[in-house]
């Protein structure tokens, strides 16, 4: 058996780096899209908006019950067809793997974030709503300035945990032939035959990023625990 040779990693680093950047970009976009959409989804259910609320509920139940990899496949085939129909001529409009990845991850994460926020909304004390009413705050201001900031605060550790999972899940884009960190490493590994070194490096990078984020989760938990201790 050959001894480990990490000089290969240095050579490969630029390619790995571009893979890592893609993973991070995908995580960031999916986070932003997912949080915005997820908050909207949660509010639509919270207000029990007729029809739309139910549709959203069904969508979330569906997305949460199937594996992400399957969702990726479906969106890759489905979105072009839907776009084609919307455009009116019925011919599929291919959107490319990158767009598929960003859209799918955003929509997929929205379902998970939405559940976190929905549960958080239900946990807000009724007195908070009453205080807002007594101060004549509009419904919009009540949610924007009082309710949602509290929900996001309470839910922030869980949201961050979910985002760590999301970051790890970005490796699934290999099914779309996209190259994330893991994809980059495995391609190189096949070229240079240095499987162990390549996969070790990937482990170290994932570990570093995820554990840094976990520290963040712990910090958020602690901080929130102190702020809420005497209530």
């Amino acid at each position: 058996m050959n001894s480990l040779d990490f000089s290969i990693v240095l050579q490969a680093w630029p390619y790995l780096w571009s893979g890592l950047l893609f993973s991070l970009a995908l995580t960031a976009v999916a986070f932003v899209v997912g949080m915005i959409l997820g908050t909207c989804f949660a509010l639509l259910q919270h207000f029990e908006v007729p029809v739309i609320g139910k549709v959203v509920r069904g969508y979330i139940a569906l997305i949460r019950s199937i594996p992400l990899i399957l969702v990726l496949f479906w969106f890759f085939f489905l979105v072009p067809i839907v776009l084609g129909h919307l455009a009116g001529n019925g011919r599929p409009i291919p959107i490319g793997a990158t767009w598929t990845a960003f859209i799918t991850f955003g929509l997929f994460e929205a379902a998970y974030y939405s559940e976190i926020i929905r549960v958080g909304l239900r946990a807000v004390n009724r007195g908070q709503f009453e205080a807002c009413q007594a101060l004549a705050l509009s419904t919009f201001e009540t949610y924007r300035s009082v309710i949602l900031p509290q929900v996001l605060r309470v839910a922030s550790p869980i949201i961050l945990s979910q985002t760590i999972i999301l970051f790890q899940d970005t490796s699934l884009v290999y099914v779309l032939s996209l190259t994330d960190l893991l994809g980059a490493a495995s391609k190189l590994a096949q070229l240079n035959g240095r499987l162990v070194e390549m996969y070790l490096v990937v482990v170290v990078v994932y570990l570093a990023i995820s554990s840094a984020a976990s520290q963040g989760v712990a910090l958020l938990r602690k901080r929130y625990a102190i702020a809420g201790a005497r209530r």
Partner: protein
Amino acid sequence: MVQEIAVNEMSRCQAIVAVEGLVKRFGHFTALNDINLSVTTGEKIVLCGPSGSGKSTLIRCINHIEKHDAGRIVVDGVELTDRMADINSVRREVGMVFQSFNLFPHLSVVENCMLAPMKVRGLSRAEAHERAIGVLRKVRIHDQATKYPGQLSGGQQQRVAIARALCMQPKIMLFDEPTSALDPEMVKEVLDTMVELARDGMTMVCVTHEMGFAREIADRVVFMDRGAIVEEADPETFFRAPSTERARDFLGQIIH
């Protein structure tokens, strides 16, 4: 001068809150049955009665946190209907203090006091801040302005809640058992604040069983039982010689 006094006289006699034939049900249960109550400007009313008699429900109807089923509620010339515009114009003039404070835990003390004046009254940040500090100084808690509610004692939190309501410059203040969630040693600081507010001429409706407070500031004690107003009298008369059996029973219980 004479004219001014006359105007003051008039506004003093005018009812700022008029409740007529108020009925409130929760499902089949009638929580309030044919309540009639009017509050004149500057008047201080203490509402008391046994648990479940409908005191909270009554004052919560006055700012439409509970929606009434029948009867009329007119506050400062505006009748409470289902129209959000009416409801909000009433709520702007009516401050409320809750038993459990209900401060916003994610905002500092001064931000708690600034939010509604900015969002509802349209004050600038600087104006709202100045007003908030002024009111916090009045309730003697301005040195805690940058702290968060979770860092304060119960009595301090309740005084902040009073300040938050006052920053809207309401014409009337509603209190729902403001001291009953407090440790005994903190009751006084909150009652003192309320007494000062009363001396400043605020119109107040207070649900409370603090008899000393009632004696000191109430113009009228309103005794409720089972969803109805059973007795109304000035505090001396009410506490010394209540005219109904139910009020006697009730007073007998709270004295012990």
